[in-house]
């Protein structure tokens, strides 16, 4: 499904990824682990650039529109699937069928109380879950998520990750929490200074094995 061969990538003019070889097949759940600056975000971007079609993305900075409601921010995930006219009407008067679909997604993420609240008035953790909700609404073959649970607490992290696993069969997550990576993903990719230094099934690893990466 994903096939990268000796790829390099630069971020703001500095080479941050070197000789990346990566194959991911359908149904795999990958966690990218490593220190900040090790190239996780760049790798996520690189994969997105190669496979933009039918891929949902949760960027690190959420990419939300503060002045739009939670509903509209989630709806943005499917703008391309509807006519512009329908989108504009929905912007002014939310369509009830869309509201219902999105409400169901928000219930799963414990956000249903904020359906029509402007995103600008939410906390950091709530915003992050809205970004996840957008990807769940968007659907697709592949989910790329860059630190999708960095601002929510442990218990909610598990809820959010579970929702993401339910929504997508193939997933690539950048995660700094190794414990979560081991319990939710089936393959771990370790990055250090822009190179892949570890590629192993999750069940073969313990948290101690990952410590060396940090």
């Amino acid at each position, binding site marked *: 499904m994903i096939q990268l061969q000796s790829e390099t990538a630069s971020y703001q003019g500095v080479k941050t990824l070197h000789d990346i070889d990566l194959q991911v097949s359908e149904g795999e759940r990958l966690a990218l682990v490593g220190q900040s600056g090790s190239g996780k975000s760049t790798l996520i971007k690189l994969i997105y650039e190669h496979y933009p079609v039918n891929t949902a993305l949760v960027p690190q900075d959420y990419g939300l529109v503060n002045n739009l409601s939670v509903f509209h921010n989630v709806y943005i995930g499917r703008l391309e699937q509807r006519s512009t006219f329908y*989108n504009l009407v929905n912007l002014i008067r*939310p369509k009830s069928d869309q509201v219902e679909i999105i409400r169901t997604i928000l219930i799963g993420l414990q956000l249903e109380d904020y359906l029509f609240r402007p995103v600008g008035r939410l906390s950091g953790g709530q915003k992050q879950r809205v970004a996840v909700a957008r990807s769940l609404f968007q659907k697709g073959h592949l989910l790329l998520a860059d630190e999708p649970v960095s601002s929510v607490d442990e218990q909610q992290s598990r809820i959010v990750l579970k929702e993401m696993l339910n929504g997508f069969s193939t997933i690539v997550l950048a995660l700094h929490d190794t414990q979560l990576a081991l319990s939710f993903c089936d393959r771990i990719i370790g990055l250090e200074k822009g190179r892949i230094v570890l590629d192993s099934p999750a069940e073969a690893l313990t948290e101690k094995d990952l410590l060396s990466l940090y």
Partner: protein
Amino acid sequence: MDSVYKHSPSWKVSWLFVLLAGFSLFFSDIEIISLEPWQELKRLFMGLLTPDWSNLSEIGEAFLQTLSFAILGVAGGSLIGFLLAQIFHWRWIQVTCAFIRAIHELFWALIFLQIFGLHPLTGLLAIGLPYAATFAKVYAEILEEGDRSALQAVSRDASRVSTFFYARLPDLWQHFKTYTSYRLECGLRSSAILGFVGLPTLGYTLSSAFMEGHYSVVWALLLLFYLLIATIRYWVRPALLPVYIIAAPFIIANDSTISFDNVQRFFTEDIIPAPILRGDSLSESWHWLSDLLLNQALPGIVNTVILTQIALVASGVLTLLFFPLISTHFFKPAGRTIGHVLLVILRTTPEYILAYILLQLWGPSMLPAIVALALHNGAIIGHLIGRYSIEVQLRVDASRGLNRYFYELLPRLYGQFLAFLFYRWEIIMRESAILGILGIATLGFYIDSSIQELHFDKAMILIFITALLNVLVDSLSRYLRGKLRLRTNVDCRARNDYCTAKE
């Protein structure tokens, strides 16, 4: 619980303004009176292809005069404004400045024409006085908002002046500089239109060329004016300014002398309300005043408000159409260049000149005024919003086209847009009033007529009413901005943008 979708207050306020403008349209006269308006417009644009520079000495003279009046007026205004800024915390200074600002340069010119005649002092004061009042306010804001930490470290015994130059000015210098140079650009526009009331600047040459139908000369003048404004940062240099300021008084043409009888008569007779001068009875005085208020002030106010509200909403609509033209989110560099050229031309042309041209082509109705105000203001705000839009970071998977416009950019920029538009509300009103001089029945029309009939007492009262109306709209705008919590930043560039939007 936010379980029912509610539109934002900004949305509701926007529609309120649109409805008000729609309602105003019913009461406005918007028709094209001239017989062959498009024919004439075509002739005008044909002139663009054949700009006529043959009369170079006359054109050059007009530009030298325009430059000299602008430089001296703005320099004087900024000096006085700077001094006033030091005592701007005095309430009466603030009120006086607000009042002086509320009166348009052209109205000041009409007043000073009565006092000094066509003496250069008329033009210099017409620019200098309202500019000083504006400088005082903005300079005071800069001083107010600047960092004061260095100030606290300076010994208490140091003199106020040296403290100011060491602990405050260095950090604030950039703010003063950018704002002042921006105002010089405004000063050039003000100076140009002073020609319409008889001073020897660009407006004078332009209007005579226009009346004679020499459209090629009109374009030569306009093109040179665009060039002058577009290159402003190359020829306005701190090192060159003293040269300009010293040269300007020698360039300004003066073939008239101030008649002190006139000055005296103005203050002791002309502006004293006629009933007082005549010693009328109370009922006669009341009759005089009510006649003025009911038959001139009232229709003038109504028409000014109608024109303002329509022009405000039209400016807003044009802004929303204009800003994508220069935004990296919508067009490639080639397309954006065309957008930039269009917006630069529209915002550089003073709205008074735009209105004058359209009025000559279409005949006197509100339509030319609406179009001129909307084009000019839409281009100014469109330019600012376009620049803000560039800073919006979109996700790599963000939508395109109209979806991008309505879902990604408009929601992010709308607050900024409303803030800028409300800032320009007062300016649009000031312009609406002044365009009356061209024959549209706003307050300027009644003021100009009173002056033509040598009723300066009436003109002064009408100018006073115009100023009050402006102050009122200004505070209404401030109230709305506060209510909608529209952002006001103070960093250098934002400050410059807000000032561009304001003045």
